[in-house]
């Protein structure tokens, strides 16, 4: 992942900031650009819609296997795909309540810059 690309998405990645439509009130994530939309801070609470445990990883995640990824339905409605953390596969189930935490997502490779973003853990 490249630093500039990550930095442009920082409000979404660091604090799960979505957008709300100024007229209709619709809440979306990822955030949208344009004058009809204003930033909207999501609560970070949600439930697991589905999940998988990855054993064959892409570049940059080789050292993490096995790791859990999930699709989460946020309390405000939008869905988000992210890693699950602070739990193992045996604990996870569809419908499980989770909350967003900011964790290390990876690095920029040769530069060694660390990139942080949202993951989800079982709700405390």
């Amino acid at each position, binding site marked *: 992942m490249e630093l500039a690309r990550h930095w442009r998405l920082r409000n979404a990645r660091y604090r799960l900031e979505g957008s709300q439509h100024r007229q209709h009130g619709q809440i979306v994530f990822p955030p949208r650009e344009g004058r009809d939309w204003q930033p909207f801070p999501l609560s970070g609470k949600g439930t697991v819609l589905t*999940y998988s445990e990855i054993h064959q990883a892409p570049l940059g*995640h080789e050292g993490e296997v096995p790791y859990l990824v999930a699709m989460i339905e946020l309390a405000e409605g939008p869905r988000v795909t992210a890693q699950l953390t602070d739990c193992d596969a045996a604990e996870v189930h569809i419908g499980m309540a989770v909350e967003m935490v900011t964790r290390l997502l990876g690095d920029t490779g040769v530069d060694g810059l660390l990139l942080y973003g949202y993951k989800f853990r079982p709700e405390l």
Partner: protein
Amino acid sequence: MGAVYVANALGAALGIQSDVAPAVAAALGMTGVETLSIDAGGAAGGLAVRQAMLAVAAGAHEAVLVVGVEKVSDVLDERRESALALTTDTDWEAAHGVTLTAQWAMLMRRYMHEYAVAAADFAPFPVNAHANAVPNKAALYRFAISADKLKSAGMIAAPLGLLDCSTVADGAAAVVITAHPDAQAGRRVRIVASTVASDVVALHDRADLLDLQGVRTGFARALAQANISRDAIDVADMSDPHGIAAVLSLEAMGYAARGTGVMLGQTGAITPSGSIPLALSGGCKARGDVMGALGVYQVVEMTAQLRGTAPTQVPGARVALTQCMSGIGNSVVTHILQGEE
């Protein structure tokens, strides 16, 4: 031959070679000919066939050579997974370590949850694919597997185990698309329908997770173009890297009601003697998942079915369906082919 169209999904994504079409043309001694490289993931082969058909239909060329080619065995697993994950929404899916296989796995898990089926219920799909590949000299794995063996296989992306995951493989296939009246009389195969349909890239943004909208829409348009019903299709080949992919496609095409597509495996409907024979050359699982070349392989394989010369032949096959896709049905290309009477 007025042009050479080449489908190749991973050359650029793997940093091996981009714009392969001129290289293919030069290797064939056709330097100077019009070339087009198409890199739309697993849909590339079908798109190349369609673009060639459109060029011939428009009168731009009398004939177009379509080549599908993939070369993935030069790189290690992690790089290949990363290249495949480029067909996910990279900022919001792949950036979190999600792979294409994990996406299918998440759909499978959701399907199992909603319809109370087990992972083992998907086993007839890879079992059928392997059985059909045995006589196919061009297949990657020419051996049968059992449902029991599937259960004990290691996980790739749970609940998808090794034996319900296609192997991305090297491969190449070619077809000539022409409208010339004298071409191959008696052996011709006619394209009676050709459609492309698209879907939202990020899975979490799809209103209905288990509805492959691109498959559904593209297939409905194809049936309308060909003016036939789905029951008229004798043989089919689809993007079927996992049982869940075939199941969701069969449901989207109306061969089974929602939640009942797995039954088509259990009843034997997908076998060569069934009502909708699939993966007759081994499918993505046993023939090999040739990615960008798939749509061209499918036309070659279905042409053999319609000529009655396929290694695993369905007797009397007259109408064939091919379907290939990028990602989880981001772009879906559907063709219906008909043999000569």
